[in-house]
């Protein structure tokens, strides 16, 4: 089994309905994502998942020098930022890609699949 991070990427700017065009669209995506989460748990792939606040709420801390340097905003300027993620435990990449496709459909966003080096 391998642990994978399935990260969802979305636009830097969000409107009042998050990344979605309307309230209905947002509610549909939330419901579909909830159903996908339930299925991940029922099928035994679930490790952990979460949605993130907007990238503008991020703060970068650099503690490599003598005193920590704190900077407002995300680490890299980008048009798209990670908006949420799942951590799954799957037998191989084919299974992870299939789950990522289902997750992408549910949350209406592109999903990056990346294996963990290891999990503590």
């Amino acid at each position: 089994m391998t642990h994978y991070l399935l990260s969802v990427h979305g636009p830097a700017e969000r409107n009042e309905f998050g990344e979605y065009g309307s309230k209905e669209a947002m509610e549909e995506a939330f419901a579909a994502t909830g159903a996908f989460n339930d299925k991940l748990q029922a099928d035994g792939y679930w490790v952990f998942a979460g949605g993130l606040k907007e990238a503008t709420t991020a703060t970068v801390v650099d503690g490599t020098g003598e005193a920590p340097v704190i900077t407002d905003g995300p680490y890299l300027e980008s048009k798209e930022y990670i908006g949420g993620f799942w951590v799954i435990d799957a037998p191989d990449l084919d299974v992870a890609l299939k789950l990522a496709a289902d997750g992408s459909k549910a949350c209406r966003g592109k999903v990056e699949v990346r294996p963990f080096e290891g999990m503590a």
Partner: protein
Amino acid sequence: MADRPSGGDGAAVERVFREEYGRLIASLVRRFGDIDLAEDAAGEALVVALEKWPSDGVPPNPGGWLTTTAANRAIDRIRREGQRDAKHQAALMTYDDTSHSPVGVVEDDRLRLLFTCCHPALAPEARIALTLRLLGGLTVAEIGQAFLVPETTMAQRITRAKKKIAAANVPYRVPSASDLPTRLGGVLTVLFLVFNEGYLASGDGSPVRSELTSEAIRLTRVLQVLLPSEPEVTGLLALMLLTEARHSARVRSGVLVPLDEQDRSGWDRSLIAEGHALVRSCLAINRPGRYQLLAAINAVHTSAVSASDTDWSQVVALYDQLLLVDPSPIVALNRAVAVAELDGPSVALALVDRLPLEGYHPWHAVRADLLRRLGRSTEAKDAYGAAINSTANVAERAYLARKSGELV
């Protein structure tokens, strides 16, 4: 009972090794689940073979001998390195009952490795490089030459792909029936590219690399046995066989001989018969696709007693159908060649001149031929020059130079 390699030199050993390489690697990867370990162990088995075979003779079953020797070396290595992961420990426990006959589980091993090499998570250029390396047994330098990139670039590409297979846990598996339609297209593309690279080698070495064409045919045959009801697999096999059937008539004294000038008595009749039968079985399924249509075009060519007997209207009709499936300028260029036979070179030239293919050497070659037929010698010479400059294949360059030299 063992055959002695001729002259007792290493060349015969290396030839046997290359023939067995894909099968060897595939069975080692299945057993140990580690491509790098499989390659290292295969390399060590080659060293042992080079020591022993020239004096002891080639064993009666060289593939089985290499597999056993390599597997023992792999096990030694795992033991030497002490505790590796559980997968390796498990491999030590399993008894290798692989049969070395040409059918059965070994064939499935190679298919499994083929689908791994052609996994959609790998970049398209990495897929073909990995297939040529692991199943075709080509060296990294040879693959680099074939694709006109430096050896270091090709080595990085292959290393990166192997690393991703290991780190992301890409499975060694022939996909399940429901995944096959999406995965098959990429595999067929790679097999076709491997075949084409053998058929018209892009480097400046040998113009034809028959070890590549035969490896591509062999793998496609295995795929076709596994998937008899996928007409595109059958179509690709038919296309390869009908192309391969003409191979000995295709190069004469180092010069490429075009279809209309080939000695048709030199064509391999049994391959043509098999190819025609496969095309007919595709037609019966009636789900036309790219490879089936290309095979059907080749079936028309190989049915004609002479070039002038070719049913060009049928060839053009098949290209019309192909354009619907694959509306690429390269298909349009090939269609124009058939149109030249049906409607004359000026109609064809008008079609060819519209195509955005300045970087594609066959475009220059086709233009040169049409201009020559129209008596526009100066322009034809320029086009032959452009074609010669844009291909590295020695036999093709020789042919183009000959045609250009005939112009007055």
